[in-house]
Structures are given as C-alpha cells and as structure tokens.
C-alpha cells in the first residue's frame, strides 16, 4: 500500500483541498464511488450528449428512409444478393444478413458505426475520469476527500456502463418509435451498448498501463482496431468464422440484430467487461498514483529540437500508428480483393454485367478496390485533420504562447504543420494502396499495382482539402475547429451511403471523395480533382492569413 493512495487516509493527513461531501470516514476500497460518480455525471452531461444523440439518431434515420429506397421487395433482395456476396462490404460493414426488412437493412448499414462509436465513447469516458484526471491533477483535488482505493476507477467504469445502457435504450426506443419491432430494435441497441460495456473494461485496463491519457486512449483504440480487423477477416475469409469469437466486436456482431436477435453474446460482453474491470482494479493496486505500469522513462537532459523537429516529434506517435493502420488495412484488403474473383462467377448480377460487356472482370474488381481505397482515404483525411488540430492543441494548452514569445513568426511556426499535413496522408495513401496491390498480387490476383497506387494517389487532393478545412478553421474560427471532423464525417456518409440512398448527383458532388475519377476509365475526368486542389489551396491561404492576423487564444 502506498501512502499517497491508501484505502482510507487518516483525516489528519489530508492535504488541503475541497473534500467531497457525503463520504464516510470508514470505508472499503470503493468508499466514495457514488459521490465521484455523481460528480463525473455532472461534469460529463454535455460531453456525453452528442455521442448519445449521434448513436441514437443514425439508426432511426436509416430505418425511416428504408421505405423510400426500394420500389419493390425484389429490389431489396437484389441488393442483398449483390452486397451480401461482396466481401468488400462484409469486411467494412459486416455481412448483410437480411436486407428484406427495414430493421435488417438498418442493422447492416449502421452496425459497425454504432459499435465503433459506442466503444470510443466508453473508452474516452473511462480515460477522462481515470488516467487523464490523474494527469491533470483534477483527481488529486477530489481524492483528497476520503476516497477508497478503487473508487475513482469504479465510478468511471460505472459511468461508461450507464452511458452504454443509455445507448441501448435510446437506440431501441428510437427504432420502435420509427416503427420497428422491439426485438430487432433492442438487439441492435444491445450490439452497440455491448461494445460500450466491453470497451469500458478495456479502457479501465489501459488506463492502468499508460501513464498519460493519450497513451491509455491509444492502447484502447488499438484493441478496437484489432477487433475490427479480426471481425472483418472472420466475416470475409473462407472457414474463418471462428475469428468472430476472438474479439468483442465479433461477439457484438453475433447478436445478429434483425435476423437472429440472439441476446446471449451480450452476456459474454458483460462478463468480459466485469473481468477486465477486476483486472484493472488488481493492476491499480500495484501502481502508484499518477504512474502507469508502463513506467514513463526519463528524457534526455539536452535537446536539439527546432520547430521542424518539434512538429515531427509531436506527430511521431500518430504518424507511426497511422502508417501501421494503412499498411495493415491495405494488406488485408488486398487479400479480400483476391477472394472476390471466385465470388464473381457465383453472382448473377456480376455475370450479367460481364455478359453484356458493361464491364470486364478486372474493371469490376477494380471498382471494389476503389471502395476499399476510399476507406483508406478517409483514414488519410483523419490523419491530416489530426495533424492540424494537434497544432492547435499547442495553442489551446498554452505552449504556442511560449513558443511565439521567441523570435519566431506565426508563419514559420505553422509551416512545418502544413507540410506534414500535406505529406503525411499522401505517404500513407501511397503505402496503403501499394500494400493493397502487393498483397493482392501475392495472393494471385490480376490487379495492376501501378493503377491501384495511382487510384490511391488520386484521392490525395481530397485529403488535402480535409486538412485545409481544418487549417482554415484554426486560422479564422478556432473555436469551430471541430467542424473539420463534421465535414469529414459528412463526406464519409455521403460518399458511402449517398449512392445507396439515391441522393441526387449535385449533393453527392459536394464530397471531394465522390468526384475522384476511376483511373481505369478510358478518359478519366480530372477537372473536379483540379477544383478540389484549388479549393484546398484557397482555404489554406485564407487559414494562414487568418492565423497571422488573429489574437492567440489564451487559456
């Protein structure tokens, strides 16, 4: 037992600080959990609400538009045939088990997004109240009330559980109000909520391992990414269904909303969450307050960083992470693309298209690869925006003020970030598409490597536009900078689902990702890409001008 973190601190040794009211002096390791939970709830009201709304509303919208999508049940069945047998879509969104009903269609459309978002919500919530709170010193102030050894952890996990339960109920009720049967509605809600439960447990553990909030979040997000990959492989590769049982995302998918409505995997997720929380508590008692089990190393006494070095250093972790994601996803996608050739011969629509010379087999294969590259491109977009917002974090946390008190113009300060936001995603995209083409070829596919990489690079101006939007906001409206994420999500949803939802062409055209031409065409239309570039440059220049001119935000 360490002194700083004793289960019950004798009253006389309390450091100064406002103790929480209503905490008894005698206690167990969980003493004070309820008070901390109430406090956390009060702090988090507005932070959790957007998550709940997005996760809650998205399925309902999908459910409501279903009726207008297909003129006949036959059309829906046809879509299912072509989508259900397309491994690219199984890999991305999970298998389409039942597109014949609104609930089934909704489950397929939103399942991955909902599970992803619910998991992230839980991770951020737990980290915020455990590791990040310790890091910022907030926890110390609160813990100076008499608080049990595991109370902070317990309150954070319970809060994430409550939020996950809220997701389940919200999705269920909202879908029922839109006209769904209760069983599929709550099954889908449970798939989301179950992921929230499981990842609350994962984050509880990673919060003990990492010594900063960022490390804890990264570790938990890595577990989520690996789950997504394993689940995707389990859904697509032959004879690999067992992979679904290796990870929480596979379990949540096994609930099979709308087709099976099997709630038993939810128990598995709950059990995993409990087990992980207990593991986290055990780990917590073996570490000191403020320290992670992965001990922070000391640093060098001297440094040689300048503005470029600093920018590289600050983005090093993100860059390496994304590089791994690009190459890993690219390789997996390449494997999947290869298995498609065989599937083509079984798919009546594909056969038809080939018979009527609407497309060659290579073109069809390439069309699927294009979808996969699009996913890589969105990841590139995330990376670019992240680099720019990382720059703004420096201002937000007060370090830019210190830097700019040195003989350094605003422009020279921001330029390394601009260069990295331009080069980083482009390199990632090139590496990802090269990995895709290479792994496809190794597995025996006909794909032309150069063309795949070229198609991948054709997406790069869109990534630049995403980063430029972020820079524009940071320069001119820094308080609205998170809007860059909204824009990217809007593009993602529009490009992925707009065509299926029969959105008009002008609307689809507002996404730069939609207008990227297929390089396999005989005369690809590059004009829209030129516009994308021009717009990106315009936003960049406006953002830079704004940044040079505006007040530096202070804390």
């Amino acid at each position, binding site marked *: 037992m360490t002194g700083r973190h004793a289960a019950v601190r004798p009253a006389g040794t309390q450091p100064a600080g406002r103790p929480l009211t209503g905490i008894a002096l005698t206690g167990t390791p969980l003493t004070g959990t309820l008070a901390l939970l109430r406090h956390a709830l009060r702090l988090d009201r507005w932070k959790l609400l957007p998550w709940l709304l997005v996760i809650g509303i998205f399925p309902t919208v999908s459910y409501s538009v279903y009726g207008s999508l297909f003129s006949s049940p036959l059309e829906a069945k046809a879509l299912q045939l072509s989508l259900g047998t397309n491994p690219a879509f199984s890999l991305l969104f999970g298998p389409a088990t039942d597109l014949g009903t609104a609930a089934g269609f909704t489950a397929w459309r939103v399942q991955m997004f909902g599970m992803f978002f619910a998991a992230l919500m839980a991770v951020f919530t737990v980290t915020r109240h455990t590791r990040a709170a310790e890091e910022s010193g907030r926890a110390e102030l609160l813990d100076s009330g008499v608080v049990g050894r595991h109370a902070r952890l317990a309150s954070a996990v319970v809060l994430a559980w409550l939020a996950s339960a809220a997701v389940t109920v919200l999705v269920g009720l909202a879908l029922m109000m839109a006209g769904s049967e209760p069983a599929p509605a709550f099954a889908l809600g449970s798939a989301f909520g179950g992921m929230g439960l499981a990842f609350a447990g994962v984050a509880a553990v990673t919060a003990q391992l990492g010594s900063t909030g960022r490390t804890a979040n990264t570790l938990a997000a890595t577990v989520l990414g690996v789950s997504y990959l394993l689940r995707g492989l389990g859904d697509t590769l032959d004879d690999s269904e067992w992979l679904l049982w290796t990870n929480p995302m596979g379990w949540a998918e096994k609930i099979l909303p709308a087709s099976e409505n099997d709630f038993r995997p939810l128990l598995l997720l709950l059990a995993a969450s409990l087990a992980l929380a207990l593991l986290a508590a055990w780990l917590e008692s073996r570490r000191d307050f403020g320290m992670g089990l992965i001990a922070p190393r000391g640093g060098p006494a001297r*440094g040689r960083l300048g503005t470029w070095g600093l920018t590289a250093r600050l983005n090093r972790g993100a860059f390496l992470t994304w590089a791994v994601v690009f190459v890993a996803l690219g390789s997996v996608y390449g494997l999947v693309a290869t298995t498609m050739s065989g599937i083509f011969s079984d798919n009546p629509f594909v056969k038809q298209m080939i018979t009527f010379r609407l497309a060659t087999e290579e073109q069809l294969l390439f069309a699927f690869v294009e979808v996969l590259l699009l996913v890589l491109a969105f990841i590139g977009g995330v990376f670019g925006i992240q680099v720019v917002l990382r720059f703004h974090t420096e201002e937000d946390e007060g370090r830019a003020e210190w830097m700019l008190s040195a003989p*350094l113009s605003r422009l020279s300060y921001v330029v390394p970030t601009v260069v990295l936001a331009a080069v980083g995603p482009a390199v990632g995209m090139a590496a990802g598409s090269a990995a895709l083409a290479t792994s496809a070829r190794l597995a025996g596919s006909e794909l032309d490597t150069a063309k795949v990489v070229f198609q991948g690079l054709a997406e790069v101006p869109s990534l630049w536009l995403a980063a430029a939007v972020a820079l524009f906001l940071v320069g001119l409206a820094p308080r609205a900078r998170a809007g860059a994420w909204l824009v990217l999500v809007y593009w993602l949803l529009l490009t992925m689902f707009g065509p299926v939802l029969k959105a008009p062409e002008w609307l689809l055209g507002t996404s730069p990702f939609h207008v990227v031409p297929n390089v396999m065409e005989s005369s690809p239309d590059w004009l829209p890409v030129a516009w994308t570039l021009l717009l990106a440059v315009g936003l960049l220049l406006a953002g830079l001008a704004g940044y040079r001119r505006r007040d530096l935000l202070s804390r």
Partner: protein
Amino acid sequence: MAAVVSITGLTKSFGHSMALDGLDLEVSEGEVHGFLGPNGAGKSTTLRILLGLLRADAGTVRVLDGDPWRDVVTLHRRIVYVPGDVSLWPGLSGGEAIDLLGRLRGGLDERRRAELLDTFELDPTVRGHAYSKGNRQKVAIVAALSSNAELLILDEPTSGLDPLMEATFRQEIRREKAQGRSVLLSSHILAEVESLADRISIIRRGKVVESGSLEQMRTHARTNVAATLSDGATRLSATPQLTAVPGVEGLRIDGSRVQFNVDAGGLAAAMNVLTGLGVSALTVTPPSLEDLFLRHYGERAGQGLPQ
C-alpha cells in the same frame, strides 16, 4: 532614462468584456517594474499585447522602440517571457524544452543554464507531464534567464514556487538587474514586488490606477492614524470635527479609540483636531504597499488580498 516599454491609452476587449480600458504604463531601462493587481485585472492581457500575441484595440504601444505587433521577430530577439501558466510538452523533458526555446532564440548561455538548473534544483531529465506546477515554472524561468535578452517579461513567475525557491528567484532577478536588464514583473504577491521593484504600477479593472516608486507612492498616499482619546465625552464631537477635515477617510470610532487615514494635505489639520480633542496615545503609520493596494481595491478590503 529611456523607456523600454511605453503604453498609452491601451484598450482591449474580448467580446463584450473590457479587459483593458485606457491603460498607461511606462517601464524605464534598467529597472525592475512591479505590475501589481489581483487576478482578472488585466496583467496577462497587457503582457500578451507587449509580446504581439494579442492585438491592441486602441492606444499606442512601444516596446524597445518597436511595434510589438509588427516587429515580432526582431523584438523577440531582445525579449524573454515567462508565461503565467507554464505548460510543457508531455513527452519532452524539461531540458529539451529549455533547449528548444534556446534554439529558437539562436542559442543560450551554457554556463548560466547549468548554474540555474543547479540553483533552482531542477532535474532536466523529467518529462513534461511529470513536473509539478512549480517545476514547470522553473523550466520557463531557467529558459528565460539563460538567454541574453534586454527585457524580461515575467507573468506571475513565482505563483507555484515554494518560499525557498521564491527567495532564490528574487536573488536571480537582482542579478539580472545588476547586468543592466529591465524587468517587467507582474504579480499579485505584495512582498515580492515590495522587495524587488524599483517602481510599481497598480492595475485595477484594466486601468493603471497608481504608478511610481514605493517612496513616491507613500508620499502621495495616505497616512494611517490611530489615537486614543483622553476624555470619552469628547467622542461625540470627534466625528463631525474629523469628517470636516478635507482628506480624512475611513473614520472608525470604537470606544475611545479613533482610527482614520488621511492624505498628506489634510494631515496637519487632522492633527490639530486631535490635539484639540485631547489624545492620550497616538500612532501615525506611513502607508505600506498593502494599504496602497487595499485602497484601490477598497471594496474587498475585508477579505484581504485575493489570491
């Protein structure tokens, strides 16, 4: 003496709230200038404008004969700054942060750097997220003092330091001054300003309400008088007589004890009244910095200084 900082009529607002409202400030070459005021008075805002981090709404601001907004790079070669709330890069060690700032300035005084790390007992190998507030502040202080700048702009540099380190800090500032450097030191700690500053400006709600050396301020300012009246009966007449004296304020009569403060002009007249009433004991105290300060923040006098 030439002015290194000269501000007249400076205003700055954030949205609807007016942070600076016609502020005047002058710092002479080679002096330590104390910039005194409670939280929210506008100290940091003023310093940020001097560094070109914020843009002035109106007024003229000159620093080292330059325009702080336009001539950022050239001016900053000659200025160092210690921010009010030092935030370090979580993954960078303190030493790396010091050297980063040093490198941006085109190098730092190696001997001084080593010496300062020693006197402030700062371990430069600790990573940013592991430093306490006081140690983060020390990192910024070491980075600032190991440069060869002419003007030091320090925003509440000791708010996280323990008393021992505060003493070390004062000693180091005196050394800087002895080298001929000018220092603008914002603070809400009276003792610090009183012991270091040659001249003081007191800021209140975005305006400098009093400026000068402590000596000058004392002569301009009010003297505290406490007297015990010899005869209780005269108490009734004490109130009207003393209130009639121009310059008497803060009159409190408690039993036979009379307390008030009075400006230099009214001192003689007030003494005459007291003598007329008959005094058995009399204390006359020249104003302390605290009195000066509290007079400008009169409405909060009961609470003492806001921390």
